[in-house]
């Protein structure tokens, strides 16, 4: 923490030296601890120094997420838990995490893909606040079908952080991409830049929003809400620095892959059981 603060203080001083004069001083006073985000997306620092979390040292952890798609049963408890835990807008258009369903029907070359936010599935659940997969293929001959949970990949080289004009979104030292809702200007450039569709605009707060791996929980030693409620252990979370953590073991014991590696974003959600059609 100290090292990070030193870095940000140094960056701040450098910036103020550059800008000079009273304007910069006034701006600094108004914005609190203003720092300039350093060049290089992965090295981006928060624009405003984050508050210290008592008893937590972010330099001692490196969080990662695992998804075992072969286990997922599409119950969507994770989606509902996430909405409740993080106070996500309760409709079918804003999700910090979601589940996709891939269904291969006999005689068809490409899978039919939907998520719980599909109008057919929303109609089946009867509400935009409750989610379920409608049994829409019950009369068809299904050759293969599976679910894929999705969430923010907390990339090592996040395109969203790269494009943020203010440094309101940044990658923490423990490997989580977060957004400072008090600093975000709501331009939605990051929403455009994310190749995974993980970001959305929060119309209530007028800022961008996304999964934080429940940062408020993991820094207190708890699991993210979606991991905690998953009844089949399809979601795995832990610390890469701890070789015995669930996620370290998951990565060690499986052949994993990530989504869209060609983007160069270096995602940190590791998947097992994906098919070639998963995007």
């Amino acid at each position, binding site marked *: 923490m100290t090292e990070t603060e030193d870095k940000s203080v140094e960056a701040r001083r450098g910036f103020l030296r550059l800008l000079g004069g009273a304007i910069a001083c006034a701006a600094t006073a108004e914005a609190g601890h203003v720092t300039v985000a350093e060049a290089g997306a992965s090295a981006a620092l928060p624009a405003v120094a984050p508050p210290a979390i008592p008893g937590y040292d972010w330099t001692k952890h490196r969080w990662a997420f695992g998804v075992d798609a072969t286990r997922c049963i599409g119950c969507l408890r994770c989606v509902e838990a996430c909405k409740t835990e993080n106070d996500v807008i309760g409709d079918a258009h804003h999700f910090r995490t979601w589940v996709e369903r891939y269904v291969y029907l006999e005689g068809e070359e490409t899978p039919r893909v939907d998520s719980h936010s599909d109008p057919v599935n929303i109609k089946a659940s009867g509400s935009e606040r409750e989610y379920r997969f409608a049994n829409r293929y019950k009369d068809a001959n299904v050759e293969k079908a599976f679910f894929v949970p999705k969430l923010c990949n907390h990339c090592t080289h996040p395109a969203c952080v790269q494009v943020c004009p203010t440094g309101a979104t940044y990658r923490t030292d423990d490997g989580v991409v977060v957004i400072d809702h008090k600093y975000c200007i709501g331009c939605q450039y990051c929403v455009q830049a994310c190749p995974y569709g993980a970001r959305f605009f929060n119309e209530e707060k007028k800022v961008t929003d996304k999964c934080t791996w429940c940062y408020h929980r993991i820094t207190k030693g708890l699991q993210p809400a979606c991991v905690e409620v998953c009844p089949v252990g399809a979601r795995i979370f832990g610390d890469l620095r701890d070789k015995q953590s669930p996620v370290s073991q998951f990565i060690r014991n499986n052949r994993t892959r990530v989504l869209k590696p060609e983007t160069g974003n270096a995602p940190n959600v590791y998947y097992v059981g994906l098919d070639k059609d998963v*995007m």
Partner: protein
Amino acid sequence: MEPVPNIAPFIGYVYPNETVIPWTVLIVVYPYLTGLVAGAFTVSSLYHVFGMQRFKPVAHLALLTSLCCMLIVPVPLLLHLGHPERAFNAMITPHTTSAFAIFGYAAACYVLLLLLENWFVFRPHIVQQAQRTKGVLRLFYRALSLGSDDLTENAMRYDRKWIFALAVIGIPAAHGLHGYVGFVFGSLKSREWWSSDLMPAIFLFSAIISGTALLIVIYVISCRLRKVPVDSPCLKGMGYTLWGFMLFTLLLEGVEFASLVYRGREGTDMILEFVKGPLIVPFVILQFGIGSLIPLLVLTFMIWRGTGGKTLIAGVFASACLVLVAVLMMRWNVVIGGQEIAKTGKGLLTYTPTFLGREGLLAAAGVMAAPFVLLSVMVRLFPPWPQATKAG
């Protein structure tokens, strides 16, 4: 909470969060206005830097038009922001890897440059008016003269030096500003429709043609309103400029589309389905057919036949109007089109703009009209017509 605007129906599979379109019609207007700035400035530079005398009748009008558009450019962005009051965060703590962060600085510098150049160009008029007028107007012009009322030949020579220098710096500045707008889209790897190295060049050339076309339209209308004849060599020159740069623009756009299809990377099937389906009218018919091909044919024909007189005016004017529509459609097809092709590569969305509201069609129309309302006031305060001013 009020209902979420911009919810887009879709076909195929799109990520759940994609069903709300992030960038609306206002972000179509933003690059359109920026393009008009760069284009109008190009025409003024043809006179001020390259000494093309035939553009003298529109040189000052071009500068004023450029300034009026530029002053409105930040408005669509501010209207779009969730927290416009925090807009300066991007300037006080710029995130240097963001293309957007640089916009504040680039735009501010360019506004300053335009203000300076306009001031030098209209200084003789300002000084004369400060002596001739009375009351509030006198105060206004006196304040604007900044205490510099020397109109001797020596002073005018000094002014001309400044105008030349500013016009020279202005060329890379204006074009850089607009090339950068292309970079905002072209540098994103999340959308195949945007991700192209040619995007900055395409934006730049389409900016030049839109600015030239706008000047043609404004010039012809202003001649009508002032009941003076249209300067034929000037209009012909602008027609040539429009024709030449249109060839570049179409070539670049053609090459970009061809290479996208030829490379045939993942998601191209969806893009082709999109172009053949929902994009037929805005892309194929409006942008390329009516907006580009027809004016190109008309201009080619007139250049070939050496058309003059009223036919030339009508032909160039009509072509310019069509080009303005084509470039607006190009901005629409890039900004909105890009978002209608899902990041999944397996679905298409349909954006329907709202009429009212902060990001509705009415607001966008207001923003589009604002530079011209401003211009109509400015030409009264600072007449850009050749006989009214001696500088430059």
